[in-house]
């Protein structure tokens, strides 16, 4: 049981196998192994969290807390899919941040503060960085559960099953949230067609 995380089943992707070996070493107290895991995943964890939260400062806090929590509970990683395990922790930390912000904003009855897309001119989307902002604005129109589902599927490359595991919902919920979330994104994008580069533009 001790080395379950180090067991590499045939057919395991190399990336996952490396993660599991590093995790097993981290569990035995090897700090460098854990730091290697952080280095491998911080980009994708932060990307997920910042898009889920739509706020770099909150995302920074959530990412930091996620890695600290992962470090503390590495003993609880029993093998399997390390990135999924990590994303689940990050997801929960992000939700904590979201709840904290809601509490702070409770008086003002605000939902997630979405940047007002109409206020942004076309020049904002001229480059790819602008695309990031547009996507963020589009994501902000989604409820958090749909946003999380869409992001986990599209940017974390998780399968429906894995998304269901991370979010602790069933497969049907994943499918319906995904469909509804994508519909909203589509509506947003077609409402702002003029802002999009041609390869992303929705052609009616």
């Amino acid at each position, binding site marked *: 049981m001790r080395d379950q995380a180090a067991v590499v089943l045939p057919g395991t992707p190399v990336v996952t196998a490396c993660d599991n070996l590093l995790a097993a070493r981290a569990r035995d107290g090897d700090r460098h192994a854990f730091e290697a895991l952080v*280095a491998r995943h911080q980009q994708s964890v932060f990307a997920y969290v910042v898009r889920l939260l739509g706020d770099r400062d909150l995302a920074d806090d959530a990412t930091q807390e996620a890695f600290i929590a992962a470090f503390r509970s590495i003993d609880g990683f029993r093998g399997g899919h390390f990135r999924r395990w990590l994303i689940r922790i990050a997801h929960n930390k992000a939700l904590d941040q979201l709840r904290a912000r809601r509490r702070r904003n409770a008086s003002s009855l605000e939902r997630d503060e979405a940047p007002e897309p109409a206020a942004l001119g076309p020049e904002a989307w001229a480059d790819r960085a602008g695309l990031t902002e547009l996507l963020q604005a589009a994501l902000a129109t989604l409820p958090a559960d749909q946003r999380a589902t869409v992001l986990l599927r599209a940017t974390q490359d998780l399968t429906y099953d894995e998304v269901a595991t991370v979010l602790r919902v069933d497969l049907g919920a994943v499918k319906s949230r*995904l469909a509804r979330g994508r519909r909203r994104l*589509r509506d947003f*994008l077609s409402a702002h067609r003029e802002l999009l580069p041609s390869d992303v533009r929705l052609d009616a």
Partner: protein
Amino acid sequence: MSTEAPLDDELIGAYLDGELPPTEAARVRARIAASAEAQRALAELQAVARLLRMAPAPAPPRDYRRVVPAPSRWERAFRWSPALATAAAVALIVVGLVNIVGSGTRISPAAAVPGPPHVPSVALRGEAEAAPAAAPSPGRADAGTSVAQAVADTPVTVETQAATERMAAAPAGLSAAGVPATPEPAPPPAAPDIATERATSSVVPATPPDLKVASPAMETPTVAAPVAASPDRWPVLFGVAGALLVTAAVTWLIRRSR
């Protein structure tokens, strides 16, 4: 055409995500090809997916490798505590057993001394021939300057002789496990002094065979009375060993549950 599941965003999305089994995917592909509306829905979903993929991932504002807390002094100190406590407890139990066995065979004359409840078990060991030798000695203990001193000393010599021979491995494990922190390991260090002391005054330590050690030892004045001390001490040691084992188990459980 919609005899099956409706060709809605959910199904088209699952098709796009490669979540459908091959046969179903082929059927959905055919259905999409037959429907202009479904084709448009697919194109829109693809555009959304493309945007999600193309938008550059926001770069982290810092390197999170630095946020991993350095193990605190406490964590470092307690990292090996379950192993240490277990090793210490096991070592104590081994030493205790060896000593009890040792005292049982050697100092069985204790039967003559009134008192300790474990005497019967000692007597059971059938060292009957040793008993007569012990008989004269209890009285003589009074003559000694300090009985307490003798009580502390004598069992140690007799016991450690046995102990050092029988558990050559055990003392090594004991010191390696870091046990010196606990008070119990006192006997081994104490032994050499007494042994040498005794070597100058009597013949006892020089004779290696067990049985021979027993009877000459009985003739030396200080030997017999102290016997009562060892039964008092070992329960304490076992208590400490048990406590260490419990500590180890609890620490281990806490660490796991974290």
